[in-house]
């Protein structure tokens, strides 16, 4: 349980770091961390005896999955705040995090079958974990389709409700990994009783990967929010010019 809290605190510290960093510094730190992560994966982390080299997909597959869960958690929180405060800023966060969450979810859905084929002997199985992850991807793709291009408060409110309801799928995925008997392996990072199934070298490599992916997530979030804000400013400016021309 203590390990869970350590990881939660570790993840929650990132928004603070994000606020303190400027764009160039953030990008530099992210690139360095990503390079260190790749070096650790291929030069430091031991090769797993049963699965062989293909097990190294684990580092990016699980990091992508945790980043995806965090992105959708942010969509849920920002959507609640948007419905409560009716502030465009929260809506911008929700929309940006949803798009990045879909990108990471797509990576999870691609790297999963590439890992599964040599280990399970099949690309895909309709077991609860995999199916629920696909459903999660479809929910947030629907969210993005609701929000195509122009800003419409009515669509934004509908999307916010979908963003909140869609997040219900996330604990279901976690629960399915732990409790259902499926092809998907049980959690190795944190097992029952708070122990880990990874060696110390594997755990260190994984944590560096996770930091790199979270830094990448916040970098992408910053860029995507800037696009949404610029688009909104353009719409306002165009409206002002039209009014002046008509006047």
């Amino acid at each position, binding site marked *: 349980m203590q390990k869970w809290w350590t990881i939660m605190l570790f993840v929650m510290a990132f928004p603070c770091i994000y606020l303190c960093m400027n764009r160039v510094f953030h990008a530099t730190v992210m690139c360095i961390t990503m390079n260190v992560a790749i070096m650790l994966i291929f030069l430091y982390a031991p090769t797993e005896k049963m699965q062989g080299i293909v097990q190294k997909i684990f580092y990016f597959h699980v990091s992508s999955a945790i980043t995806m869960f965090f992105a959708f958690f942010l969509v849920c929180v920002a959507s609640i705040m948007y419905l409560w405060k009716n502030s465009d800023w929260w809506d911008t966060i929700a929309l940006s995090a949803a798009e990045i969450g879909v990108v990471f979810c797509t990576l999870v859905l691609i790297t999963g079958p590439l890992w599964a084929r040599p280990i399970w002997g099949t690309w895909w199985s309709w077991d609860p974990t995999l199916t629920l992850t696909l459903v999660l991807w479809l929910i947030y793709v629907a969210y993005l389709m609701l929000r195509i291009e122009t800003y419409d408060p009515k669509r934004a409110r509908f999307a916010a409700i979908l963003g909140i309801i869609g997040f219900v799928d996330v604990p279901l995925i976690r629960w399915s990994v732990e409790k259902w008997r499926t092809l998907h392996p049980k959690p190795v990072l944190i097992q029952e009783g708070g122990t880990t199934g990874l060696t110390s070298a594997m755990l260190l490599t994984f944590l560096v990967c996770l930091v790199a992916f979270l830094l*990448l997530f916040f970098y992408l979030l910053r860029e995507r929010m800037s696009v949404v804000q610029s688009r909104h400013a353009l719409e306002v400016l165009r409206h002002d010019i039209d009014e002046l021309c008509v006047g």
Partner: protein
Amino acid sequence: MKNFWYLFAAYSIIWTALCVYMIRLSQKNKELQVELRNLRAQLERILTK
């Protein structure tokens, strides 16, 4: 080195997808900034007339 190609494919796809997404975002950002600058200049011209 059994199953190396699966590992290679997974990492290639991840890096290609992330690079394409980052470049697309950065280009979109630049285009929008140029468009914003042009519109602001246009608005200024209208206001000074």
